[in-house]
């Protein structure tokens, strides 16, 4: 009897967890439409606390697993565009070789040990896990960034990407990665240069408040985008100021003087 009740309780909690992601989605939508400055804390988050963070991380990892045909990605992919190819998951011991242990030979043929990349037509398959990842942990910056990237760049759904990234900014006001992704979508996809400049400037402000040192290439990526947005929005003098600021961080970069010269020419 006790076992039966335990099972019913476990299954009920599981069902509530599943429904919670849907309720949270509606609440976030309501807040974004009616109270843009407000924030919402999920009921489930309050109930199971930090365990949700682990579930969110697991969902995020699952997105990576889906990208690699159901197995963990072995390493960074050298050629991201090489879709559909199959790579051996074990570096040292090929699963097709005989190992001397009959059961291991069977396992290597029964269990998937290779990885393959999603074909572009299968790109939507990742979205549920990125969605669950942000719903389970609204503080998961990387999940918001990846969700925005995947929606805008891979599925051509820029408006949905903008909505989810705006939600991410509301939940992570100190993040620079989320507004950078938002700015990139405005700049490259929507061609709304003023909105792009606004989002990227927010990213720069947040980056300047970072306590940990920011990798110089990350800074360069953001500043170049911001300068570009300013220039396209009709403010080349601001673009020049950004490039000059970046030269302070990268004095030996051969690309920056050229870029500064270009913006000077635009000002004239």
């Amino acid at each position, binding site marked *: 009897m006790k076992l039966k009740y335990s099972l019913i309780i476990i299954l009920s909690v599981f069902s509530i967890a599943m429904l919670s992601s849907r309720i949270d989605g509606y609440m976030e939508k309501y807040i974004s439409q009616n109270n843009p400055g407000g924030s919402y804390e999920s009921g489930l988050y309050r109930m199971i606390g930090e365990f949700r963070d682990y579930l969110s991380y697991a969902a995020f990892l699952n997105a990576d697993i889906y990208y690699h045909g159901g197995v963990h990605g072995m390493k960074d992919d050298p050629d991201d565009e090489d879709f559909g190819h199959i790579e051996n998951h074990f570096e040292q011991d090929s699963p097709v070789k005989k190992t001397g242990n009959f059961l291991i030979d069977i396992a290597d*043929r029964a*269990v998937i040990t290779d990885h393959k990349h999603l074909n572009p037509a299968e790109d939507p398959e990742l979205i549920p896990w990125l969605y669950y990842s942000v719903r389970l942990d609204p503080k998961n910056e990387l999940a918001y960034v990846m969700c925005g990237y995947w929606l805008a760049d891979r599925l051509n759904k820029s408006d949905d990407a903008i909505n989810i990234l705006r939600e991410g900014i509301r939940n992570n006001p100190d993040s620079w990665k989320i507004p950078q992704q938002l700015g990139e979508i405005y700049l490259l996809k929507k061609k709304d240069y003023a909105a792009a400049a606004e989002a990227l400037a927010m990213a720069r402000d947040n980056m300047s408040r970072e306590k940990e040192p920011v990798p110089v290439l990350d800074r360069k990526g953001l500043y170049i985008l911001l300068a570009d947005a300013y220039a396209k929005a009709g403010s080349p003098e601001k673009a020049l100021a950004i490039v000059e600021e970046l030269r302070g961080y990268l004095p030996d970069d051969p690309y920056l003087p050229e870029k500064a010269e270009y913006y000077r020419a635009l000002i004239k």
Partner: protein
Amino acid sequence: MRNLIILASIQFKELLRKKDFYVFLVFLLGLLFFFYQESFFNVTNVSRYMKDIGLSLVTLFSVIITIVFSAKQIPAELESRTIYPLLAKPVSRADFVLGKFAGSFLISAFSFTVFYALYVVMVTLKAGSISLAMGLQAYILFLCMYAILSAFSILFSLFLTLSANISLVFLLYFLISWYNGILRSLCLKASGAKAFIFNAAYYILPHFEFFDTRIRIVHGWPPIPLWVLSSIVVYSLIYTAVLLWAAISSFNKKSL
């Protein structure tokens, strides 16, 4: 044989009489329906998450039913003392253990078949279809796994209390399913006496990972080669037979 059929059919009726199976069925239906109607940013052609979560739920619910029902069979007979009139009839102890196993396996197979059929229908409605070859392979392999789990639960029920038995079999199932790769690496990397010990452990421990075809079904991998499938089926038959032989030997020595 007649004794086995009678014992198994009594157990099967118990499944239909108790509510556990129906609770799982309703939950599965509810959860599958929930995932069926989920929409993510109005993106179309999204179905793998449902195949994945659905099959995980089917597997988990069937594993729970298999372990719990199998573990309860012999202790329940001992506790209610119904075993004494049963063994007084022309039913040998071996028949009794085999009958209990047959009944438990029948329960597992029936539950899994119903859950799996529901899963296939819901996934077909959402995603179009499931590869017939892969679907059949998965069905056969999962049944083989439930036979081993059932035999383990029957064997351990002769030595352990009900809760200890259920916990131990669950632990064995999850640990081996999750961490079999570590033992594989140890077998391949070790040398000398260590290699012998690790390889012996690899042969002795059950390999539930053989039966888990979820990645193949969800991510569209090709079916397992026929000779590998046959080897796994033979492996599961041998493993189950050894466990049942151990259970019968122990039960024969047990004073009631």
